[in-house]
Structure formats: C-alpha cells, structure tokens
C-alpha cells in the first residue's frame, strides 16, 4: 500500500513539476491570469475579466474593495450557494452527531464536577478575566470587519468566523454551558436560517422591480436622496448580503464546535 502511494505521489508531483516550466513567472503582471489569454506569438486574444473588475468596479458600484464587490455582486450566485454549503454543513453535523435525551447510554467524557467554575481556582480566574476583557473587543472587531467589508479588507465570511470564534473562546475558557446560555441551539440554528433568508430575500426583492435575481441595481428606488442611486443601491445591497453571510457563518461555526466538542449532546463540552 505504501509503495503504491509512493509511486502515485511521486508520479503526480513530477508531472506537476514538469509543467511548472510552462507557467508564467511568479509576480508577472502580464501573465494570462492577470491580463487575459495570449497566443504563442504574444498577441493578446482577449482581456482578462479581472482587469475589468479593477477598472470598472468603483464606477458602477462605488465600492473600493474590489474583492467584496466581486464576491457579493458580480459572483452573487456563487457566494449565495457557498453560504448554503456552509449552512448544509451545519445541518449535516446536526444530523450526524446530535443526540437527544439524558445521555445516560454514553459514558461521560471525563469526570465532571458539578460546578466547573470553582471560586478561588486561580488559573480559572486568570482565564475568565482575560476572556471577559477580550470577548467584547473581539466581537466589536468582528462587527467592524463585517460592516467595513466594502471599504477595507473584510466581509461577511471573515467577520462571521471572528464572531463565531468569540463564542468558541467563551466555550473553551469557561464551559460549553455558559456559551450556550449566551447563544442557545435554538438561536444559532434560527440565525443560520435567517442569514440565508436575508441573502435570498434581497435577490427576490430585486425581482419585484423587474430585474434579475440578485441584480441589486433594481433597489435604486430606495436610494431617494443619493446622487448615484443605482451605484449606492448596489453598495448597500452588498452590505446587506454580507450581513446575511455573517449570520450564517457565525451560527454554523459555533454549531460545529458545540456539536463536535460535546459529541452531539450539547451538555458539558471539552
């Protein structure tokens, strides 16, 4: 078995390295990926779509962060279904792991005292105080990353993961129960669904104004006092979509941790 694996790996690796010589050099601004496909003679066949993204995005959407604009607007379908994949992963973990009942049929993971947070336990005090100070800052930063996703690096996925990590930090530092008091199972599964609903709902809302699904320019009727109604409609719709993505990602990240760490019982955790 090991020999077959060795042969397969070296064969794949050597074939890939054999092809490396035909790639453009690292950091070449004129590579096909950056400027579009070329003939062997060096003649440009067509312009790369990323060129257009860079030159046109600010004009048509008023969003400086091209990555967010491409993610939420140009590739809106793709991102919507990526979010659905994250949601489906959360549902799959729920279906695989979640067990209901008092859990008497499975042995406990470790000897648990009744009260895991003991007064006077110094290591617990240090960790608890640090988390008390850090978690609000982490959550504030997550909200900043979500809300400024179209002006600075960030967006729904990144901010959602940071937000989910803050709840996971609470679950690790104290115990899963206190994290679930903040963010119960009912709440996070609802939040995950609401995130998808916001995203798809914005898409359907565009259809009411006789445009395509997720064609945010249709929402310009809401931009009454703006100088650039269509552009600003796209800009704000991107923010809405990012918020929906952030809801789903936050909830599913915490759901994955909570289910994995407690073997689906959502009781004691690690």
């Amino acid at each position, binding site marked *: 078995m*090991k020999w077959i*694996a*060795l042969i*397969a*790996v*070296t064969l*794949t690796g050597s074939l*890939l*390295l054999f092809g*490396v*010589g035909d*790639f453009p*050099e*690292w*950091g*070449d*601004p004129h*590579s096909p*990926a*950056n400027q579009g496909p070329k003939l062997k003679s060096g003649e440009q066949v067509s312009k*790369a*779509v*990323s060129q257009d*993204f*860079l030159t046109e*995005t*600010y*004009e048509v959407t008023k969003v*400086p*962060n*091209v*990555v967010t604009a*491409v*993610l939420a607007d140009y*590739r809106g379908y*793709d*991102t919507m279904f990526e979010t659905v*994949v*994250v949601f489906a*992963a959360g549902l*799959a*973990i729920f279906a*695989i*792991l979640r067990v209901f009942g008092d859990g008497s049929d*499975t042995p406990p993971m470790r000897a648990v005292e009744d009260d895991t947070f003991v007064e006077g336990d110094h290591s617990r005090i240090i960790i608890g105080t640090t988390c008390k100070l850090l978690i609000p800052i982490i959550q504030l930063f997550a909200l900043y990353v979500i809300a400024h996703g179209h002006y600075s*690096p960030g967006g729904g*996925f*990144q901010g*959602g*993961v940071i937000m989910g990590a803050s709840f996971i930090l609470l679950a690790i530092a104290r115990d899963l129960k206190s994290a679930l008091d903040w963010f119960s199972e009912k709440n996070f599964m609802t939040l995950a669904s609401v995130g998808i609903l916001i995203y798809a709902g914005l898409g359907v809302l565009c259809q009411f104004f006789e445009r395509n699904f997720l064609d945010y320019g249709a929402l310009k009727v809401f931009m009454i006092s703006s*100088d*650039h*109604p*269509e552009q600003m409609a796209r800009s704000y719709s991107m923010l809405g979509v990012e918020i929906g993505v952030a809801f789903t*990602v936050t909830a*599913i990240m915490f759901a*994955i941790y909570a*289910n*994995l760490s407690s*073997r689906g019982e959502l009781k004691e955790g690690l």
Partner: protein
Amino acid sequence: MLEFIQDNIQPYFNYWVYVILMMIGLWATIAKNNLIKKLIGMSIFQTAIILFYVSVGVKGEGSKIPIVNPYTEAKSAEVVGADQHGEHGAKGGGEKYIVEPDNYANPLPHVLMLTAIVVGVATLGVALAVVQMLFKEFGTLEEDEILAQIKNADSASPDV
C-alpha cells in the same frame, strides 16, 4: 547547480512550494492509516491549492491589495453620467476614475479562495463529525482495524 536554481526554481518558487505541499497532503491522504491524519493531509492538500491560486494573482512589487482608493486615482477629463445614466440627468454626472489594473493585485483568485477557505472549514467539520461517529461505533480510528471489524461483522451475519 546554482544556475539551475536561479533559472528553474527561483522564478517559479510559488509553484514548487505548492507542488511539494500537495505531495505531502496526497501522501498523507493515501498512505496514512489513521483517519485524523488523513484529514490533516486533506487540509494540507487544500492549503496547497489555496496557495497556488493566491500566488497566481500576485503582480510584482508595484502592486497593492485590490482596494481601489478613489482619492489617489487620476480622473479623466470626460464627464460621464448624462449619456450613461440618462434618466438621472445632471444628478448622475461625475468624473470617471482611471484605474490602472497593474497597480493592484488580481482580485479574482482572492475571491475564489475566500469562499473556499470557509467552505473548507465547514466540510472539515462534517468530516470530523463522521470520524467521531466512527470512533463511537468501532472504538478505533485506524482504517485497517475498522475494515477488519466490518469484515468480521459481515462474515458473522452473511445475509446483511
């Protein structure tokens, strides 16, 4: 030897790194017996692909992150708006920014990998859940032991 490195490895450094990472991941996925180690290999494989995509979008030393700063970009003399967004009339007017694409990194690979990373985390979570159920069922994470147990169960009850 030095010349070979300078001519064949240095300009293609990113591709060499991704191929080597990919080989490590593939080796772990195929040859390792422990399911968790297989998952680690799968993650390394995925990281190699992400590294490949992101490194393709690099445009040399002059390029910045793909966030267009409208205040530092030159403006063209022509006024767009009245013809392009006719229905808004004078309200839609304004100067067009000229963005030089070579000054910014390629945004497309970044977009593709951004979603790939998060979906990778989610799928890894599902894989870990399946592994956890397997451990609950068989009491081991070694692939050959699980296969032996399944074989024993099959021979014990052939009608299944």
